[in-house]
């Protein structure tokens, strides 16, 4: 299963290891991990998603990457629920015969995932204030690169 949407933590090191194992046909593996940044007095980061659509959207984004680049494999893991600073929110991994494809596909997956997969982040501050994270124009603009 190349796509997983889960509330449980995932073992980033073990996923990297597994993804890069037994690949005598692939010369390049790129991984990306997204981490909750403890900016300001952020206490927790809450991630809401749209069950059903999320899996579908991530599957379509992964499929788009596979059609565009020569890839041996793709992995997307994304958490939802309540996370604390330093925790890993998500990861993507790509395997390709050559590095350019692996890099571009991972970069593409991240850009699409940011703005086209139905996740929403809410910041909970130490003083109990909370605020939905606003989408950035630069994230939307990044899609025009592809």
């Amino acid at each position, binding site marked *: 299963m190349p796509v997983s949407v889960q509330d449980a933590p995932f073992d980033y090191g073990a996923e990297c290891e597994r993804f890069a194992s037994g690949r005598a046909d692939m010369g390049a593996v790129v991984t990306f991990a*997204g981490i909750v940044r403890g900016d300001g007095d952020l206490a927790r980061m809450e991630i*809401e*998603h*749209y069950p*059903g*659509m999320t899996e*579908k*959207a991530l599957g379509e984004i992964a499929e788009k990457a596979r059609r565009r680049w020569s890839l041996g494999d793709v992995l997307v893991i*994304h958490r939802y629920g309540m996370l604390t600073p330093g925790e890993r*929110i*998500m990861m993507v991994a790509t395997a390709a015969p050559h590095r350019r494809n692996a890099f571009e596909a991972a970069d593409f997956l*991240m850009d699409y*995932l*940011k*703005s*086209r*997969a*139905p*996740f*929403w*982040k*809410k910041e909970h501050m130490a003083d109990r204030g909370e605020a*939905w*994270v*606003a*989408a950035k124009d630069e*994230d*939307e603009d990044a899609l025009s690169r592809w």
Partner: protein
Amino acid sequence: MDVLYFAWVRERIGLPKERIETSATTVSDLVAELRAREERYDAAFADLTALRVAVDQELTDFDAPLAGAREVAFFPPMTGG
């Protein structure tokens, strides 16, 4: 038809999901119908440029037709990753 709300849209309207009987033929018609209901709907849909819509779990536009749709969802721009 099931209508779903996420993130601040859900909070502003005060529920995550409701079943609506409607004869609206487009998303825009449905939005107009919802806004006419109550002030909290009117407030949530006041600025459509701040909203996104999915029909049957596919992102689409506000002028999309609703014929045969089972599920419509409204939410702010996504912030995954």
